[in-house]
């Protein structure tokens, strides 16, 4: 490891091995906490730890510096085993100012370690954080292991030789803190030094200052005599391969791009910006070289119409939004149902109802996705389980849409969308092919003549001679697709649309159980609750409980074996971030007396909350 020349003598601090650690970096929006967090993440990943992360931004664009609403944080969970969530509670909180301390303290358990930048605890900052007295002095932190470090001062001292103005130097203090944490958890500096070099290429002074700050923080750990021990987290036993950190939104973007290549069909993404879905638009806008067209439309209805028009014209048509936008798309999605076109709708759910809590997560659009249209209008509904799973789900959505000529709704959420995890990159050759067929023999062509197995109608696209035909939202005659007001035909077409979607159950994997196939309790989940519930169930089993876990990625239709699985357990519990939407579906479909665990606080489940509920239930 390269060391700065000024490096003082090292003292020897004992090193202890731990399995898992959760760190939360918190500071003002201007303090660079997101960067700090993602550097720590990257380094941890590179050295082979299992990781999971969760950023938390303020709702305001730029709240006043030092204020409570201005606090920004980044949590990372890393370990040698079983990291599937960003962690229930931080073991270490790094608080760069009083507001950060105030906002995050309630999340800590007794004895958690709190690293504070004492320099920031000025009367002015304390006031902005609405502290009446200085928590570092009034004894209110007695339950925690507080480590007080004048980070600003130490950072300034380390950079005293830099020619940069004071203000700029101060902005390096997040690297100083990062260096200290690297020392504390025995991480190499290289990956971050590499990043600094690349990122500040051409701005040598800034690069140097940041590098120096990083190193200074590291060295401080070694010689500063504030820590009596430091920690080591072994490599996890991770499948070999090339990895990359992805958020759910990144993975959706890559999944869409991959689908386009796998289908050999251009993709058109139409969207109106909305938190937390906008990043999908931003991401896809960067794939023009793959032939991806993105249209930022005037509203969500337009986005749905544009995606539908693109699908009609033979593209992979897709739109993305969050809850309020999905509500707006209902009527147009109904048209997609009637015209049986392969369009995909991504909903990155946020906490509702109405504007709700736009930056917080929830899973409360399930029933909207299933039923938010007039008439009986079945669509396919899928949900990714983890950030990386968003990639596979996007491909699955297009596979089904195109094969069955049916709209598909994908329910991700803010927690998946913004949270990140390492993703083992698949090889293109191993990905499912998406088999796009357009009819080529005009003889006997009828726009609603169905494939006998899939019940799909032919995808005949404008521009192809001999297939000129008209479609629309009025009920269509079976086969010919002409406008038809005949009662029996409407009954038939309604049933056909339903049967087509139900039939897809034969073309999706059966639901799998983690844990025993029969037992006392089954946990049934969908979407982003996967990680926490899976871990909780595992822990419960480790404690001797007979607990199975089934996670659904296909919500309409359900896997064929779901009913049988549910009946294998004494009790069924459905933890959800809503007031009980999947539970509602399951009870109706299988007449199983499922109970709910319903958290609607805009926050994901913690493992221990689920564990406690399991204990309560068994």
């Amino acid at each position, binding site marked *: 490891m390269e060391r700065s020349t000024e490096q003082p003598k090292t003292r020897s601090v004992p090193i202890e091995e731990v399995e898992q650690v959760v760190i939360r970096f918190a500071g003002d929006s201007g303090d660079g906490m997101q960067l700090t967090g993602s550097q720590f993440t990257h380094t941890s990943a590179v050295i082979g730890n299992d990781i999971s992360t969760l950023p938390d931004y303020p709702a305001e664009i730029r709240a006043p510096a030092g204020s409570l609403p201005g606090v920004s944080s980044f949590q990372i969970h890393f370990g040698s085993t079983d990291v599937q969530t960003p962690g229930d509670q931080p073991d270490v909180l790094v608080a760069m100012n009083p507001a950060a301390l105030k906002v995050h303290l309630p999340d800590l358990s007794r004895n958690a370690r709190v690293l504070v930048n004492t320099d920031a605890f000025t009367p002015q900052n304390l006031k902005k954080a609405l502290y009446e007295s200085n928590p570092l002095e009034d004894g209110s932190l007695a339950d925690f292991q507080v480590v007080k470090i004048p980070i600003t001062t130490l950072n300034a001292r380390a950079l005293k030789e830099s020619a940069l103005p004071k203000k700029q130097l101060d902005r390096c203090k997040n690297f100083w803190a990062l260096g200290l944490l690297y020392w504390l958890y025995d991480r190499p500096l290289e990956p971050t030094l590499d990043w600094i070099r690349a990122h500040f290429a051409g701005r040598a002074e800034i690069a140097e200052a940041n590098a120096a700050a990083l190193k200074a923080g590291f060295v401080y750990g070694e010689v500063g005599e504030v820590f009596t021990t430091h920690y080591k987290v072994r490599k996890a036993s991770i499948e070999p391969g090339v990895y990359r950190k992805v958020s759910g939104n990144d993975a959706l973007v890559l999944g869409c791009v991959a689908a386009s290549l796998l289908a050999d069909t251009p993709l058109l993404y139409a969207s109106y910006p909305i938190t937390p879905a906008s990043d999908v638009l931003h991401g896809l806008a960067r794939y023009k070289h793959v032939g991806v067209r993105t249209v930022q439309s005037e509203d969500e209805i337009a986005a749905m119409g544009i995606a539908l028009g693109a699908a009609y014209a033979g593209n992979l048509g897709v739109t993305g939004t969050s809850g309020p936008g999905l509500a707006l798309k209902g009527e147009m999605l109904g048209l997609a149902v009637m015209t049986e076109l392969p369009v995909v709708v991504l909903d990155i759910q946020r906490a509702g109802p109405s504007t709700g809590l736009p930056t917080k997560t929830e899973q409360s659009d399930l029933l909207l996705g299933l039923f938010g249209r007039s008439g009986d209008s079945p669509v396919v509904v899928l949900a990714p389980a983890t950030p990386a799973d968003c990639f596979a789900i996007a491909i699955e959505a297009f596979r089904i849409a195109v094969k069955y000529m049916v709209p598909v709704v994908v329910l991700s959420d803010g927690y998946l969308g913004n949270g990140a995890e390492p993703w083992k*990159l698949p090889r293109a050759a191993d990905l499912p092919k998406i088999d796009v067929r357009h009819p080529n023999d005009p003889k006997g062509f009828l726009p609603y003549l169905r494939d006998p197995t899939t019940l799909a109608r032919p995808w005949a696209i404008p521009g192809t*001679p001999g297939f000129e035909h008209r479609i629309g939202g009025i009920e269509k005659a079976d086969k010919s697709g002409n406008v038809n007001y005949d009662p029996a035909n409407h009954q038939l077409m309604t049933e056909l649309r339903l049967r087509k979607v139900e039939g897809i159950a034969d073309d999706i994997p059966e639901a799998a159980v983690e844990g025993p196939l029969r037992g006392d309790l089954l946990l049934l989940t969908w979407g982003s609750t996967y990680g926490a519930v899976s871990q909780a169930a595992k822990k419960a089993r480790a404690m001797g409980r007979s607990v199975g876990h089934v996670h659904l990625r296909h919500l309409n239709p359900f896997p064929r074996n779901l009913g049988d699985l549910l009946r294998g357990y004494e009790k069924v519990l459905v933890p959800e971030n809503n007031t009980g939407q999947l539970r509602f579906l399951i009870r109706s479909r299988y007449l199983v007396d499922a109970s709910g665990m319903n958290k609607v606080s805009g926050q994901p489940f913690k493992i221990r909350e689920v564990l406690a509920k399991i204990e309560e239930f068994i």
Partner: protein
Amino acid sequence: MSEDRSAVLSRKDFVSDQEVRWCPGCGDYSILAQTQKVLPSIGIPREKYVFVSGIGCSSRFPYYMNTYGFHTIHGRAPTVATGIKTANPELSVWIVTGDGDGLSIGGNHLLHTIRRNLGVKILLFNNRIYGLTKGQYSPTSELGMRTRSSPMGSVDYPVHPCCFAVAAEGTFVARAIDSDTKHLAMVLERAARHEGTAFVEIYQNCVIFNDGAFDSVTERDDGTVHLVDGEPIVFGTNRGKGIRRKDGALEVVTLGNGVGEKDLLVHREDEPDPGIAFQLARMDAPGFPVALGVFRSVRRPTYEEMVEEQIRRAREEKGPVDLDALLREGECWEIK
């Protein structure tokens, strides 16, 4: 899909097998007939035409055209058309809409489609009434009009569709009337050939719910004026009247007594200042003749041209695509 095939197309190639279901005497028939007459002459093969409509009497139009067609939902035809045209710029995409469909529920999509200069044609059948829902006032109905939903008279001021299109930065804005079929055909052909959004308002008589809405315009010799590019604006019996500018506003003058054509406003379709097209489009009875013809026709890059250009450039800059390489573009690491 050779261009040759189109050479032999005739009117009846554009007639579908569906029975036309408008009220006898409805102005929609004439517009359909003129469209079917004009298209064969454009030189685009039939399979490249797509007619997209919303909901309303007018919006049944696509069923009667033997081309690709999409009868979408109320007010949203421009959105579906945007998807189609952006996905495949080679198609000739025609939006058929009504005064309710296009300007009531669908006004916003119309605005944005026009301002983007998406290369589509927009035919707005203006009968100043909701036909399909059996006679409520529309955004173009006159103030005070009594309908089923306004028994004491409408309290909404009407909007002028062509003014709206000009304000939306339309590159081609025109007006025609169902009853003047020759002029209508000319305008449709001009629209068909325009690159960029071609917006055409067509006065259309609804014989059932608003019969004679345009009588005041058609009955009198001086009820209308036909705009001709590069010519002074003359109208009336024996071309005895003209439009002149006065203090920036427009006025009607009688020719003779020292007032000649040279004093009149000369119409320029490509006038850079759209304010003049705006003024001409807003002329209305009483006091003014209603102008028919092309208010504005200018060329500027279309939406789809710019989209394609960016794709071309991105491809050029980033070279050919390989999925494996593409997935590995981020910060990756290897676990062995």
